């Protein structure tokens, strides 16, 4: 029996999160992410979970990190300016290997910008917003149903790789309403953090066991009495200034993500088999791009679309392969050309790369993509 609902994107995010096991939410009100907090406040206590509206954005992410260490799957959501405020503690979560999900419903910026016009301006902030060298997982769905499934994936990856996972949405898909069948989504697999079994007396909180990707993670209060810090630390968890300890830890934190791209990276290929041209596009704008692909094909142009769902780490292998096949890649994004830089880096001259972007608060509609590409091809 289908369980059909008309659901908003932000609402699907909360429903997916609860499905994934979210039992703690802490955040601060900001549009266009507010519905995520509102629905979490309504639903979490009904599931025995906890919601708290904190005094600021920084406290919103900090409390979520604390709750995760105490054993609850935790999430916080924000938009543009709030995402900037959360960055220091996202770095803390990376360093201390604490699973949480941070949702950023992107809006135009910099600063307060055009409240709250859509934007895809946080692509690079998601990658490099926190200071220091690190890797990051950032996912970006493009429909209400995919928000539901990708939120679950974000939790699963955060638990599996013990790291904050950023879920990028945008004002358009966050506020859009679409049909969703909850029945067909009910059997999605859920991953829970691996806990240690108390055997030896010398417990090493940050030791990776043979065959594991990350250290096992007990909760505070379960008898392990471990130490958590944002300082460089060795396997015991205690701070160290030793160069080889720092080298080993920081590279392990990067490599646990970069070495597992085949598990983490997710993407959609649309009509690329015979394509001479390709669009790379994501989130709400990929929907305009898809329509543009259909229309351009009707006009005889062999074009397809590659849509990264995992924005970071980027689908490097796939984009590189694509660039060997096509004459030209168009990166269509609602910013001044952020992912364009990453695509250019990957393509490294194997084909031509052009960008189409916009930063005036307006969305990108199919017709302008069509005009841009046709002018470019027939120029």
């Amino acid at each position: 029996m289908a369980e059909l609902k008309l659901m908003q994107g932000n609402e699907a995010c909360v429903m997916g999160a609860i499905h994934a096991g979210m039992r703690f939410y802490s955040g601060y009100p900001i549009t266009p992410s507010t519905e995520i907090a509102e629905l979490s406040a309504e639903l979490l206590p009904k599931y025995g979970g906890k919601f708290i509206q904190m005094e600021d954005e920084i406290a919103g992410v900090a409390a979520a990190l604390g709750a995760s260490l105490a054993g609850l799957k935790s999430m916080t959501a924000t938009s543009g300016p709030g995402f900037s405020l959360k960055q220091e503690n996202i770095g803390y979560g990376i360093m201390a290997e604490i699973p949480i999900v941070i949702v950023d419903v992107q809006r135009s910026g910099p600063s307060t910008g055009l409240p709250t016009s859509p934007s895809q301006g946080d692509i690079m902030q998601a990658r490099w917003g926190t200071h220091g060298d690190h890797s990051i997982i950032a996912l970006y769905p493009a429909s209400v149903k995919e928000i539901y499934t990708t939120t679950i994936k974000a939790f699963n990856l955060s638990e599996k790789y013990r790291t904050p996972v950023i879920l990028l949405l945008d004002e358009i898909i966050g506020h859009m309403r679409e049909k969703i069948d909850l029945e067909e989504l009910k059997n999605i697999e859920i991953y829970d953090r691996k806990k240690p079994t108390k055997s030896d007396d010398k417990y090493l909180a940050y030791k990776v066991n043979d065959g594991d990707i990350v250290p096992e993670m007990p909760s505070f209060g379960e008898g392990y009495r471990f130490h958590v810090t944002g300082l460089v630390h060795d396997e015991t968890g205690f701070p160290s200034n030793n160069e080889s300890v720092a080298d080993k830890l920081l590279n392990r934190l990067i490599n646990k993500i970069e070495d597992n791209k085949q598990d983490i990276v997710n993407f959609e290929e649309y009509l690329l088999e015979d394509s001479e041209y390709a669009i790379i596009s994501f989130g709400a704008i990929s929907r305009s791009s898809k329509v543009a692909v259909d229309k351009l094909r009707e006009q005889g142009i062999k074009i397809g679309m590659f849509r990264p769902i995992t924005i970071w780490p980027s689908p490097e292998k796939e984009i590189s392969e694509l660039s060997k096949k096509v004459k030209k890649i168009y990166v269509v994004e609602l910013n001044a050309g952020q992912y364009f830089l990453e695509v250019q880096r990957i393509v490294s001259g194997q084909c031509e790369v052009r960008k189409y972007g916009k930063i005036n608060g307006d969305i990108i509609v199919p017709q302008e993509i069509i005009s841009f590409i046709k002018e470019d091809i027939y120029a």
Partner: protein
Amino acid sequence: MPSELINNYFRTETLPHIWCPGCGNGIVTRAIVKAIDNLNIPKDDVCIVSGIGCSSRAAGYLDFNTLHTTHGRALAFATGVKLANPKLHVIVITGDGDASAIGGNHLIHSARRNIDITTVVFNNSIYGMTGGQYSPTTPMGDKATTAPYGSIDPNFDLCELANAAGATYVARGTVYAVNILEKVIQEGISNKGFSFIEAIATCPTYYGRKNKKGSAVDMIKFLKEHGVMYTAWQKMSEDEKIGKFPIGKLYTKERKEYTEQYQMLIDSLGKESNQ
């Protein structure tokens, strides 16, 4: 030979600590441990959360669940820990800059919520870790590396701040009056609600040297001569109070505790499950 208290409650492999000779932080840390020991709380049930600064390094030395967070954010992390697992006795170790400058917002809101967390502020009137800059508790007129002509910033009375914001147990101790410090921390942990303890500590290296306060012993003597028990303080005239400060239990009040209130909300809704 380390004392039994050190053997039982400190991670001796992480010692010696990083604090300077004459620093008061060790005395405050011992008082916290002694208070926990007096209350017989199992070590597994204690969670120490700290921020950034000299005092916040104490967390790493203690054999509990310990969380050394980002600058100013100890109370925000602690709020998540406590709400997620209300059975834990959550104690925040923080400094004057950490708690009242960069973390001041979290302090007033934790007090407002009356969440069951005991906060011990190691107040040495200076940013020590960064080399002696003035903090919100540096007395007006005193010198610091960033106040070379004397600070023109009025200083906070942290106990008055915590009380006004809603803390249900507020006390002050000093690194001289150790028994009182232990006692008020113990009472703070026992209080079901937000407890705020200001522990006046000494920093001879930066604050003391900049302000010609003498040796560590001289600074502790100053605390002996100027800290007055609150019962005696209340009987003093305004003139007699000048230059002195009250110690001991200052304020208590009855208010509902936050995590209990949240549990009542959950219970009233009836638990649903998505499994």
